[in-house]
């Protein structure tokens, strides 16, 4: 992908960015994030289908924040994550240079977040009907069966917090689950602690999750966290018509309300 490499090298040479976050091939052939600081390193750059990780997560990393200007190669999910982060006031103006490659293999450098907003609007990600099908299948089961399914899945959680670490929207410097005096979320990885942790994480991600499904990809225990994120996202869209990572302004369903939100479940 020569055009992209040239672009990155150009950004680095002209000091428009002091570090550029992209992908490269590791020693074992696995694609991993790369952090280029010099133009002569850019030949290592890799771009292709295997480059899955959502690089937006590195924007919060203290070591990355030390660089004055950061460039980042963003796929569509990373773009959504960056837009949501911008809406949540987590990205300073003029700090990031965001680069993407569109379907026609054209390199795009975004001038500002408004451009990203319109880019995302034009490049809607198709809804993954498979995931929706899995969810519907689960919902068609009896409650007891569903409970059994999730107890089995979540009991295997070892609480390595890879889901939290990989998540671009989990940027709290201190997570509730780490507080233990007094303890609010049960820290041990027994089933109760796992349920509390995943329910809390989902509630905190409701309408903020951009559904990149990285948490599901990285889980060492293969817990289908994407079912939870997809479910909570489709709920938010259905109930309140809001989707995360679409606007430069904060539009967070749980931060606001409508007087005529339905309440047929309230007596």
């Amino acid at each position, binding site marked *: 992908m020569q055009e992209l490499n040239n672009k990155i090298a150009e950004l680095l040479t002209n000091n428009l960015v002091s570090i550029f976050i992209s992908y490269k091939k590791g020693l074992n052939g696995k694609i991993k994030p790369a952090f280029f600081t010099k133009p002569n390193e850019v030949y290592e750059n890799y771009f292709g289908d295997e480059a899955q990780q959502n690089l937006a997560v590195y924007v919060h990393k203290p070591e990355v924040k030390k660089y004055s200007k950061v460039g980042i190669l963003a796929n569509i999910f990373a773009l959504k994550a960056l837009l949501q982060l911008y809406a949540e006031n987590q990205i300073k103006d003029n700090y990031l240079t965001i680069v993407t490659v569109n379907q026609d293999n054209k390199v795009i450098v975004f001038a500002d977040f408004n451009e990203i907003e319109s880019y995302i609007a034009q490049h809607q990600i198709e809804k993954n009907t498979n995931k929706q099908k899995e*969810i519907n299948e689960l919902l068609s089961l009896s409650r007891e069966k569903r409970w*059994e399914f999730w*107890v089995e899945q979540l*009991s295997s959680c070892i609480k390595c917090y890879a889901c939290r670490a990989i998540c671009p929207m989990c940027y709290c410097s201190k997570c509730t689950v780490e507080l233990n005096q007094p303890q609010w979320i049960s820290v041990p990885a027994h089933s109760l602690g796992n349920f509390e942790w995943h329910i809390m994480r989902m*509630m905190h991600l*409701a309408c903020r999750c951009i559904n990149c499904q990285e948490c599901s990809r990285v889980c060492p225990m293969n817990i289908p966290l994407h079912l939870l994120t997809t479910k909570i996202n489709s709920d938010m869209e259905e109930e309140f018509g809001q989707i995360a990572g679409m606007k430069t302004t904060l539009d967070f369903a*749980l931060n606001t*309300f409508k007087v005529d939100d339905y309440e047929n479940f309230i007596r």
Partner: protein
Amino acid sequence: MSDFEPKIIAFVCNWCTYAGADLAGTSRIKYAHNIRIVRFPCTGRIDFMLLLKAFQSGADGIIVSGCHPADCHYTAGNYHARRRWIVFQNLLNFLGIDTRRITFSWVSAAEGAKWGHLVNEVVDNIKKIGPYTEYAKLGKIGIGSISEGNYARIE
């Protein structure tokens, strides 16, 4: 099941439902004694995790109640809470947690009678459904080595 006396935890707001329950008392309205009331400043303060903590501590049913829409002492706490409940209920239902055991309601300071009815209704309902132990049991699953069910199914 006739001798089963359910434990019901009620999370109520200070300004409406708590005062409503008070009115029920001063009006000498009799209702089921299975209820333990926890008073909060506002329904907006009732964290979703509190409901789970109640189930963990052995509650068979939960009532969450506050001011009617447009009546909130803090203007909008109940509206925010209402949205949170919609999301939370859907999530719990998806995870297979028994949402029949959670009752949401609006009870104003003048509705002592409604409060009495509500509690009676909930207690009757939970008596019919039976005790809820599934969730409280979770704390025992996954402790010990793998042989003790680290990855095993619930018994």
